[in-house]
């Protein structure tokens, strides 16, 4: 009886494990493998080049600018969706009228694919008839037709705004769950002790939301490292690589320039950075758990 249960468990596990192995583990190991080669993605013949691809990273100016953009993206990802999500969660938690409606509306973007979100924001940023310029023109004495996505100085930030708009809903939901987990009597103590709203947020809610904050920040950082699809739709890393991120740069090197070996080396670096962040995340989570258990 026990053996047949164990057998069935194994059978049921084989399918997801196989899918995971074929689509995650195998490509991951392949990336490691190809990062030491000069494969172009098509030719069956390639050579092992040792750490040459990793050495190239140090001299690649585009990699440097993509890395800087990724860091900017990451910092913005920590500040914008986290801050906005927290603000909206606190607002909804304070029982504003129509809170449930707002919750649904703010969460909606996360249900959309990045392609849809990207395309919506391309229209919003459209120089001649886009919503943003139309609104700015309304408040201005002259017609505004600024090309938000076509200017190197504004392209990256314009995409970050669109991305933050999508991610804020996710942060908000995580913070709302965090707020729900705070025992109501702790909030009542604040009321009895006469704390202002801001004192309650600063001294009680924010520290108690630390577990949620760790999750939100970790998710934001990991998502920002993966930031590709929305960039691909909105700017393709341009103009002049001004909105290139590491993920975008990896794609360009691998599939546009056919330096699959070098692209794999970039992927390996990204993977290791993500791994370090996940390690930090678990370490923080454990610390937070210790405090609040």
């Amino acid at each position: 009886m026990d053996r047949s249960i164990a057998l069935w468990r194994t059978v049921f596990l084989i399918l997801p494990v196989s899918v995971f192995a074929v689509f995650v583990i195998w490509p991951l190991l392949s990336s490691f493998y190809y990062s030491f080669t000069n494969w172009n993605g098509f030719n069956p013949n390639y050579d092992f080049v040792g750490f040459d691809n990793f050495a190239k990273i140090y001299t690649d100016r585009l990699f440097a600018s993509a890395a800087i953009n990724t860091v900017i993206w990451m910092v913005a990802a920590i500040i914008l969706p986290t801050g906005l999500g927290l603000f909206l969660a606190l607002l909804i938690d304070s029982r504003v009228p129509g809170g449930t409606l707002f919750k649904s509306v703010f969460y909606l973007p996360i249900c959309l694919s990045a392609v849809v979100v990207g395309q919506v924001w391309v229209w919003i940023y459209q120089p001649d008839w886009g919503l943003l310029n139309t609104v700015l023109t309304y408040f201005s004495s002259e017609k505004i037709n600024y090309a938000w996505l076509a200017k190197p100085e504004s392209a990256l930030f314009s995409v970050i705004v669109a991305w933050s708009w999508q991610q804020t809903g996710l942060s908000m939901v995580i913070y709302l769950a965090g707020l729900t987990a705070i025992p109501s009597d702790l909030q009542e103590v604040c009321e009895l002790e006469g704390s202002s709203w801001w004192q309650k947020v600063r001294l009680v809610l924010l520290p108690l939301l630390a577990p949620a904050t760790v999750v939100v920040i970790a998710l934001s950082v990991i998502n920002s490292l993966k930031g590709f699809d929305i960039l691909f739709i909105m700017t393709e890393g341009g103009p002049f690589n001004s909105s290139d991120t590491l993920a975008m740069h990896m794609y360009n090197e691998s599939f546009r320039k056919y330096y699959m070996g070098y692209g794999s080396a970039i992927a390996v670096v990204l993977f290791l950075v993500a791994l370090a962040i996940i390690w930090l995340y678990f370490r923080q989570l454990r610390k937070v758990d210790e405090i609040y258990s």
Partner: protein
Amino acid sequence: MSSLKLQDVRKNFGTQTVIHGIDLDVEEGEFIVFVGPSGCGKSTMLRIISGLDQVTSGRIFIAGNDVTFTHPSKRQVAMVFQSYALFPHMTVAQNIGFGLRLAKLPKAEIAKRVFAAAEVLQIEDLLGRYPRQLSGGQRQRVAIGRAIIRNPRVFLFDEPLSNLDAALRVQMRLEIARLHNRLGATIVYVTHDQTEAMTLADRIVVIKEGEIAQVGNPLEVYESPANKFVAGFIGAPSMNFLKASIRAEGGRSSIQLYGAALAYLPDRFAREYIELGIRPEHLSFSESSDCDFWGVVELVEELGSESFAYLQTEFNPEPVTIRLEPNKKVKAGDKLPVSIDRNAMHVFSESGSTVAIGRI
């Protein structure tokens, strides 16, 4: 002037009325205990007094001031929660001094007052610890410390001992009683544990379904319960209730138990049945067969200091509890004669209200 006055306090949640018009005067320095079964509205009453919940109608006065619509922090009350409600990220000192920090008092002043409160509760050594590093009893003391430091006019305790184990509960009960003697503060205390109520209270307020069933000092409530509910709720083990019939005899009525006249009611009684309430200590095994009824021992409970036997009878579906006299040995299956102390009978009408107490 009373310290706390509740005037026709009512509370509805939607269409559901949970508090049905409560009137109560609490004197300065009095220890009042709200007791009642789960869901009777006692915690709601406490939350209404604290201001965490609003009344639907009625008024609340603290030290003569109408605080019905006053913000909780301005009512001069402090509350100790069942869960202690300590901030996990703050040390004991920060938890106790939380209110003073909000009031932006100087740090030195806060430290001084926190230490003074900690001294009262003998937790000076714990000030640097976090709640997770404390035992249940220590956490409870910290919660009380946070209440003490505010110098409130009224302390509100919401089932503060229910999360503690039995031994610690007894110890904390004693400490709360000592604290009350030392501070002389007015305390409103909620519990469902009637032992806590009996041992701590100056006066007990028994609540049933959002209404006061009886107010009185512990002995009054124990010895002269206003109705069957109070009689059954106060006292452990619970009072025995025996169904008895009434027979009219001339101008008066006799109470018939098990076919024999047990006692006479002074007036002619218009009812057919009543219930007799007899506490376990007012039943005894007779030496002879001259008794009020016979019972078969079903179970004997040895508690160390005292023992109880549960008897099956022919006339009562529920077992009858009897406190055994010291050195009295009985065993399951024994059929024994039982006598009722005529001076300690409670007679309840079918509606549950008291008709007569004691010798009738």
